[in-house]
């Protein structure tokens, strides 16, 4: 089975070469038969990579320790789910997952692209083939997961214990669906540049694919953040770690792309910018892969001593990013600029959104790369950490978030800022009320937190205002309003829901940053601690035997004011036997939106345990907001106009293009 997987991967490279060359040659020479090769080639590559991927999973599931990759990352006593997720819990396997998802998107374009002009479809699939080929070569030459060991050991070395968690089992696939999903809009952008033409079918295709990728990336980042929160044991939700930044940059650029694609779809303006942004977004995805996979982050030194992988990915980066940007510089002039608009308009608001999101992405980029750049140029070592990002990223978000409620209320082409402001008076009052409530009832000195909460409520109330106005509040009767709401397009709902989710996340961040309480103390059996109106009692420590670890579990009771036990919390320290690596398993009790977080430290000299206890008010809103944003994306994606309107209308376009091609 392993050899079949290996062989299928080599074959995928061969078919990938076909996919890269023939269709685009056909598109340039007008040869329909060669263009027709695109779809079957893409589907075949997908089938081959699937075989290869399944073969590797099978090796993991059966603990085939004749495969080096399995030896290094698995263990026979590991639970089945982590055997499977172990497949992509390491460098080689995760690259295979990467190309698996890439070929999946290639096949999807091939299968659903029937309504595209055939030359555009052929070019898009060929461009995807280029990316695929580059990564097949990378895997086969530097990161082959199918390499055997001459004398197989009896037991494997197990997966890094902190990765043995359900959160990290599904985090990489979600993240990669996002990263690689942006390859579709990238391929469309490159195809448009090669064709020198951007038509209606282009815009109608790019937006839903970008949206889908964005939904997955949002899910991946939110899940990664929650995983870090509960698994790393110190209760932070975002660390501005380079690995996090690597996924955050494509998210910022992708969010900008999502908004500019709307302008392009609705008003056929911002064409050239949208194409550039598609290239930038996927470049960030590639860069993210490079940063995480080349080892350059852990140490520039390690990268320099074993550079084969890093240099290969660096070459891929230079070819694709440099190549596409050069193509852009060369060909962008041939594209015609689209619709006109006044600065104060929906388009103008979306341009503002793009300006700030792109600047934010550039800020994260420079902060992440600067230490590497400086060290390689001057040899000096500096650190760029959370304080830098908070100081630069925060102020960039402020005007953006303030402007969010205005955007959807402005008309296309020419908007009225004053009228939009008038309609937002109610939302502004809500925001002011939130500021007042925080100052009066929570903390009189927390001015920044109060303003932050006000901004969050400004977003929440603003998005509700948008929906209420679209339903015709104050103008028509309630039944008519309901009917109007039902008739609203999914994208209008999607916008409002996603912006609402942004407010939810912001509220969670503000609340936790400003109002979390922390207790670090030594607790002995029977000790109690008052926390958030409850009493936490330390009951006992119990040794626990897991499948591939041993643990010491500390059990706590949460007692309410009446002296009744309302919940048990257990917090553990695990020791994974194979790697001799300890992990902390935080004990978390959730009160709907807030959480009590208990993390264990060392045993103290007096026989007690060092315990770190946080009360985190409204912390779950951070991730709930992410879910709401995703839901907004899904609602928008389910818009009937995307599903039904697009094929019907672009079918004519296909005919026209086909006839045009023949003539």
């Amino acid at each position: 089975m392993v050899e079949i997987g290996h062989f299928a991967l080599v074959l995928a490279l061969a078919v990938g070469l076909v996919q890269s060359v023939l269709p685009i040659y056909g598109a340039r020479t007008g040869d329909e038969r060669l263009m027709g090769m695109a779809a079957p080639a893409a589907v075949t590559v997908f089938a081959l990579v699937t075989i290869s991927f399944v073969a590797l999973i099978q090796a993991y599931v059966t603990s085939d320790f004749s495969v080096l990759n399995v030896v290094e990352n698995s263990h026979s006593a590991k639970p089945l789910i982590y055997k499977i997720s172990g497949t992509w819990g390491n460098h080689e396997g995760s690259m295979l997952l990467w190309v698996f998802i890439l070929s999946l998107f290639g096949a999807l374009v091939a299968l659903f692209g029937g309504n595209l002009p055939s030359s555009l479809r052929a070019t898009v699939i060929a461009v995807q083939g280029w990316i695929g080929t580059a990564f097949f070569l990378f895997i086969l030459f530097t990161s082959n997961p199918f390499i055997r060991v001459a004398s197989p050991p009896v037991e494997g070395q197990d997966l890094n214990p902190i990765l043995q968690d359900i959160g990290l089992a599904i985090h990489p696939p979600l993240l990669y669906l996002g990263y690689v999903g942006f390859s579709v809009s990238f391929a469309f952008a490159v195809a448009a540049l090669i064709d020198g033409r951007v038509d209606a079918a282009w815009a109608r295709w790019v937006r839903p694919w970008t949206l889908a990728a964005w939904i997955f990336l949002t899910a991946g980042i939110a899940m990664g953040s929650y995983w870090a929160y509960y698994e790393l044991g110190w209760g932070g939700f975002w660390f501005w770690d380079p690995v996090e930044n690597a996924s955050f940059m494509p998210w910022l650029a992708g969010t900008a792309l999502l908004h500019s694609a709307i302008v392009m779809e609705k008003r056929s303006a911002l064409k050239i910018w949208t194409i550039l942004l598609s290239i930038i977004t996927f470049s960030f995805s590639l860069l993210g892969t490079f940063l995480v996979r080349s080892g350059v982050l852990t140490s520039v030194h390690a990268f320099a001593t074993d550079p084969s992988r890093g240099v290969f990915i660096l070459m891929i980066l230079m070819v694709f990013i440099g190549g596409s940007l050069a193509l852009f510089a060369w060909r962008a002039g041939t594209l015609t600029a689209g619709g006109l608009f006044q600065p104060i308009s929906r388009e103008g608001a979306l341009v503002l959104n793009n300006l700030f999101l792109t600047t934010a992405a550039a800020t994260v980029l420079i902060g992440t790369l600067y230490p590497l750049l400086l060290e390689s140029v001057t040899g000096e070592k500096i650190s760029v950490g959370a304080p830098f990002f908070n100081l630069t990223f925060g102020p960039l978000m402020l005007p953006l978030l303030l402007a969010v409620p205005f955007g959807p209320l402005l008309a296309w082409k020419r908007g009225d800022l004053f009228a939009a402001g008038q309609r937002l008076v109610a939302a502004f009052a809500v925001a002011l009320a939130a500021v007042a409530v925080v100052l009066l009832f929570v903390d009189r000195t927390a001015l920044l937190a109060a303003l932050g909460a006000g901004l969050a409520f400004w977003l929440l109330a603003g998005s509700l205002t948008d929906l209420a106005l679209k339903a015709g509040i104050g103008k028509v009767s309630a039944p008519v309003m309901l009917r109007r709401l039902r008739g609203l397009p999914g994208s209008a709902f999607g916008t409002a829901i996603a912006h609402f989710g942004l407010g939810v996340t912001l509220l969670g961040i503000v609340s936790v940053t400003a109002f979390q309480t922390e207790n670090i103390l030594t607790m002995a059996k029977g000790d109690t601690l008052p926390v958030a109106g409850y009493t936490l009692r330390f009951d006992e420590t119990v040794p626990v035997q897991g499948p591939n670890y041993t643990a010491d579990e500390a059990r706590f009771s949460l007692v309410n004011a009446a002296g009744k036990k309302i919940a048990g919390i257990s917090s553990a320290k695990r020791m994974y036997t194979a790697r001799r690596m300890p992990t902390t398993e935080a004990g978390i009790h959730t009160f709907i939106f807030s959480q009590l977080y208990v993390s264990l430290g060392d045993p103290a000299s007096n026989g007690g345990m060092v315990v770190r206890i946080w009360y985190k008010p409204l912390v779950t809103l951070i991730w709930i907001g992410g879910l709401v944003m995703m839901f907004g994306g899904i609602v928008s994606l389910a818009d009937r106009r995307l599903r039904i309107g697009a094929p019907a209308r672009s079918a004519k376009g296909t005919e026209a293009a086909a006839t045009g091609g023949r003539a």
Partner: protein
Amino acid sequence: MTSRIRRLLPAFAAAAMLLLQAAPAFAVRPDEMLSDPKLEHRAREISAGLRCLVCQNQSIDDSDADLARDLRVLVRERLEKGDTNEEVVRFVVSRYGEFVLLKPRFELKTLLLWGTPVLVLLFGGALVAVSVRNRRRAAPTGLSEAENAELKKILAEGD
């Protein structure tokens, strides 16, 4: 170092309590904390901005590493001696170099780092402004006088 100790004691490894002993130290521990809450608060603030030198992108306040603990204790010692926050940071930097600062200083060599957000925003803003102005100039400026007269005539005929 702890891993070497652990390798020396494989026989006892199964004993859960021992595993616990061998586990790395915990971030901030009660015995490190200063009795004066104001001073302790300042220590925490300073610690959040200092990098644990042996970790990946962790502040000494968050880190379990022994070196981070040493630095935390050092920060507290200096505070107890009456140093200001700036003096403490300066002292730590003089010992460990600028690498410990999670927020790099604003200097010539970090000019590009701190300047990028501002530059990109200004450059992007200027680009937007220029393209808006160009578009507006290129846009049709409405009807000419002759066209207006024609329109008036047609509208009058319609009455």
